[in-house]
């Protein structure tokens, strides 16, 4: 049975309309000790089916250990949201894949599904949405900052 109703699919399609660049979702799951991996996999597969600019790559946290480590994923379900493909019109040549370090750990259900859509939009636009003043202040950073946001689906 489909997870999204036709109305929800239409709404999501509208939200994702005109993504400037493709977005690749890389899901790390595992078959044991993961209550939400299967539901997450189905949800993301359906989501990827809504817009041609979205793709889903499924990996196994245990079997694809090296790739998971390279992505900084040590839990399932762990999701990488990265920007792929050619630069948008008027932009200089850009690398094929840009990883901004956006990760979602845990099933993107409830309000977290909205966070996932927000992440997809930001990554596709390659734009944080921050004010010019904030960008200027962040430009002074010389080392990476690991930011974890804890949230619940309700």
């Amino acid at each position: 049975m489909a997870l999204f109703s036709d109305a929800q699919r239409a709404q999501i399609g509208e939200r994702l309309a005109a993504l400037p660049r493709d977005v690749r979702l890389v899901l790390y799951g595992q078959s044991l000790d993961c209550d939400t991996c299967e539901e997450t996999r189905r949800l993301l597969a359906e989501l990827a089916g809504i817009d041609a600019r979205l793709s889903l790559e499924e990996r196994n946290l245990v079997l694809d250990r090296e790739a998971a480590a390279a992505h900084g994923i040590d839990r399932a379900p762990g999701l990488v949201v990265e920007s792929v493909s050619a630069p948008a019109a008027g932009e200089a040549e850009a690398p094929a894949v840009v990883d901004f370090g956006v990760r979602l750990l845990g099933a993107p259900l409830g309000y977290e599904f909205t966070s996932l859509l927000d992440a997809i939009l930001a990554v596709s636009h390659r734009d944080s949405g921050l004010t010019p003043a904030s960008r200027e202040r962040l430009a002074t950073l010389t080392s990476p900052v690991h930011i974890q946001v804890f949230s619940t689906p309700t």
Partner: protein
Amino acid sequence: VSAIEYPDLVRRYRVTGVPKIVMNDAVELLGAYPEEAFIDAVLKAAA
């Protein structure tokens, strides 16, 4: 990070409410703040 699925992380970072933000395991914010406060926190975490 789901605060429901990973009780070990919830314990480690003392997540008593959401949204809780932890930067570089050093700076913590609980609740909503204006953008400027987040930037302050990022710079403090990097220092």
